[in-house]
């Protein structure tokens, strides 16, 4: 049997996507089970999409965003941060581990940070085990 590997979806904002690219050119290794989806800004990621990703089989969802302090007057990442925090509370309430949704602050030059953090997240998700929402929702009482 093939060993189970977690599937992780990372929504990366424009700026942190360059960080992810940088991890690539500088030769940092990170696990291949992280699929990145590039979005214009982390605040465009509607929490519904995160929930949908979990439903469709992701074991964890990661959002990467600019640090709020790096932005000027208004900080969209703060909205993202608030949404993630709310979503984690909701997941915890319905009985899904809150660690399955995370936010990472990655700037455009932090390829190394991205690679390290992602490897850590993959390990932690492996420890949590598969989410298996489909199985849990179909289970007969």
């Amino acid at each position, binding site marked *: 049997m093939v060993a189970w590997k977690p599937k992780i979806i990372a929504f990366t904002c424009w700026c942190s996507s360059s960080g992810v690219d940088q991890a690539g050119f500088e030769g940092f290794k990170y696990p291949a089970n992280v699929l990145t989806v590039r979005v214009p800004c982390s605040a465009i990621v509607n929490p519904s999409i995160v*929930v949908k990703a979990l439903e469709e089989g992701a074991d964890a969802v990661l959002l990467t965003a600019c640090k709020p*302090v790096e932005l000027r007057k208004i900080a969209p990442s703060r909205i993202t941060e608030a949404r993630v925090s709310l979503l984690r509370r909701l997941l915890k309430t319905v*009985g899904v581990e809150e660690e399955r949704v995370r936010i990472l602050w990655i700037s455009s030059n932090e390829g190394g940070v991205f690679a390290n953090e992602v490897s850590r997240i993959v390990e932690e998700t492996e420890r949590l085990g598969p989410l298996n929402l489909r199985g849990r929702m179909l289970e007969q009482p």
Partner: protein
Amino acid sequence: MSSPEIELRKLARNLLERKVVDLVIGYEDSEAGVRPCFIKEPGEVEKLVWNPDCRLSLVRYLRGFKEKKVGIVAKGCDGRAIVELIKENQLDRKNIFIIAVECNGVYKPVKYGSSKTRRQMAEYCEKCEVRVSPIKDYLIKSDEKALEEKIPKGDVEDLDWLSLFRKCLRCMACVRSCPFCYCTECSIEGFKPALVHRLVDPVELFTFHLIRAIHMAGRCVECGACESSCPVEIPLTRLYHELNEWFRENYGYVPGLNLEQAPPPLVFKEGEKP
């Protein structure tokens, strides 16, 4: 007949006769129980009733009468819903005459065909701290004590939410009865490509309920209309209460308490540190 009911009828007659309002939305009795009624003539006011079965929120109907002056019978939670909808620019304060009735809690609905005669107070009413609408044009005081019969409370995390969601029929009664679900295109129903389909996949019930909970966070006034309309009795209000608690802890915000406080996190000051 209770005295708040007499007072309510007198007030409604007066308002309609003096043409202060074009119609009054209230509750009336029917064979199937208490239901909403729309009173346009002073002669019809004798239909109005007020009792602990008046549980469904009437606020939902206000948006249908935008150009008219409407009188509405509002409990505490209904008044809070009106406040929150005014903040969301869905209602115009000057077109509404709020007949606030002091509420002592409402009964849990009885299932069709059930022979239970002892009635219990709804669970969300026990948590309620606002028994009178925060904004009002007239107040009708209650003459009774709070309902006695209590339900033993469990911890919200003790519930097995996934198996509760599994019972859901996707009838959308919760969406249709909630004062805040006014989206012309509901993201749970109408989007293409759809996030949730009407009949296809049971795992989508998880998405359905989480999305609706997110849309209610920081807005839900815990009026229980969704929960009371749910044919399979999913305690939805308890789920939304958890998210409201998050708002209370993080921003000190409780929906519908006053017209001044803007809903977070939409507002933050320029230069404010995160």
